[in-house]
């Protein structure tokens, strides 16, 4: 019995490794056709679902996408009518090419906006909770912040689309669904998470250290700046990177707001797409090479977030020593 119990527990632990390896392998396998077809150039490829003649893949780009919204670039307008009617020149063998540049850029930019918005506020909240508020208030506000973190991301998305975006739009103009509104809602979503774990890092500062600084006549701000921040620096940076990782992979809060349009945003308040949103909206009806290209995106997202989380966990948040 003892042996059996031990074996089962060992196998359960090993399952984590097997699962992670299977995720890696199966994503890679499913992405393989796209990887073979497009190679590393996929990362820089700006066309998504565009048919091109096989002989000359770059010059005569003819547009139509499999997306709900047809994106036609102005430069290609003269060809587009013909291509829509005739489906391209029948004599020339065509292939559809996929490039990940737009969703990759969309992911990075929306995350950047989210971080720029959330970081200062989250730091303020963390300082407030860890150092300023009296214990009772800190507890109550702390729970409220943690509850905010527990709200499903789809709720953030809906609230963002119907209530938050119109207000943002009234200030900055542009579209309601845009890189900016998506990034801001994403920021609101990671805000409580970032604040809560940053607060936990700050709280690891030993009281003796703080007290000895106060005993020298330091103000609260000086204690925060000179004692708490330097002491918990690694933990704070780690927390911020974890929040970054969460923002990179977030789907639902962004899906309502980014617009799901495969075009580079001409300005901060125009729509685009991110990797998770591309997957969320296109996976269901995709077939063939398109599915594979989406898996390629998923694979890239997995690698990116793997790297980001690893840096946070192993470089900054080492638990043991």
């Amino acid at each position, binding site marked *: 019995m003892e042996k059996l119990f031990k074996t089962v527990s060992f196998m359960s632990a090993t399952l984590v490794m097997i699962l992670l390896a299977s995720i890696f392998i199966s*994503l890679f396998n499913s992405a393989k056709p796209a990887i073979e077809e497009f190679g590393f150039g996929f990362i820089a490829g700006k066309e998504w679902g565009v048919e091109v003649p096989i002989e000359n893949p770059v010059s005569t780009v003819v547009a139509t996408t499999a997306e709900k919204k047809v994106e036609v670039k102005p430069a290609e307008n003269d060809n587009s009518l013909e291509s829509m009617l005739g489906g391209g020149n029948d004599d020339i063998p065509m292939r559809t090419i996929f490039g990940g540049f737009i969703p990759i850029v969309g992911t990075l930019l929306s995350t950047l906006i989210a971080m720029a918005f959330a970081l200062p506020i989250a730091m303020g909240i963390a300082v407030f909770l860890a150092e300023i508020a009296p214990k009772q208030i800190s507890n109550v*506000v702390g729970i409220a912040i943690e509850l905010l973190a527990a709200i499903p991301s789809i709720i953030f998305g809906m609230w963002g689309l119907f209530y938050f975006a119109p207000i943002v739009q009234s200030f900055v103009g542009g579209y309601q669904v845009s890189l900016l509104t998506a990034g801001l809602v994403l920021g609101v979503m990671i805000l409580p998470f970032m604040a809560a774990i940053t607060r936990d890092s700050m709280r690891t500062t030993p009281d003796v250290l703080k007290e000895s600084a106060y005993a020298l006549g330091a103000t609260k701000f000086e204690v925060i700046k000179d004692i708490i921040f330097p002491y918990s620096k690694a933990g704070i940076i780690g927390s911020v990177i974890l929040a970054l990782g969460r923002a990179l992979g977030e789907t639902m809060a962004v899906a309502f707001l980014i617009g799901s349009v495969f075009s580079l945003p001409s300005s901060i308040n125009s729509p685009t797409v991110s990797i998770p949103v591309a997957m969320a909206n296109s996976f269901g009806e995709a077939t063939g090479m398109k599915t594979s290209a989406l898996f390629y995106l998923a694979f890239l997202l997995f690698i990116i977030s793997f790297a980001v989380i690893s840096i946070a966990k192993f470089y900054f948040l080492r638990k043991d020593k």
Partner: protein
Amino acid sequence: MRLLLNKIVLLLSTVSALIGLAFLAWILFTLVGKGLSSLHFSLFLNDLIDGGLRNLIVGQFIMAGIASLIGIPLGMMAGIYLQEYGSGRYVRLIRDLSDIMMSAPSIVIGAFVYAIVVVPMHGTSGIAGSIALSIMMIPIVINTTDNMLSLVPRELREAGIALGASKYRVILDIIIKAAKVGIMTGLLLSFARIIGETAPLLFTSETSNYFSVDLTEAYPSLTVSIYALANDPTSSSRDLAWAASFILTMMVLMINLLGRYITRKKG
């Protein structure tokens, strides 16, 4: 000057906290306002095909429940291994991998389950949705179990062994019991986490308008339907989406508060 700077910083930080709370209040007011006005008792009696939410709520719970049945034992056993049996490098490796898996994008988990379950089964299904949720859950349960067992004093283990109990008895009878409150809270929080998930279900379970107990076909999901309803242009669909969001959020927050309450009361 120093004192002024101090005041300014403290004020800014307090303002940040107020901003955070304002967002919480704003979202909750929106939910309650929109949700309550669309909420009607008949929503709990009818399925989506008849304009209700019954099948979606039940479906979401069933998938999260099955995910728990898979994820909790596996996660707890793995946590037990990390804390009680394993040692050295291997434990550190698994702990690190589990931490990484916990933060993996949920949509990627969905894609993975699509590749290994949906494709071979030739279609979306409740099983696929449950598996995706269980994969989300396992690392959270591991983390909780691992942390909570680490708080149990070593002497308690030795005292059990010194009475002649075998190790697995000591673990099941004494150590798990000693860590019970913390583990229970962690399990509730992990359940709250997965029941509100949308992304891993989008192309694994999809959703369905009908009540279903057949887990081999597309399965009703509250969250996936919220996404579909909210994107629907008709206002009645949107109202239904708000009502569903209200119910979903209340479920998640209630389970969360329940977990905290247990800790506060017993801990």
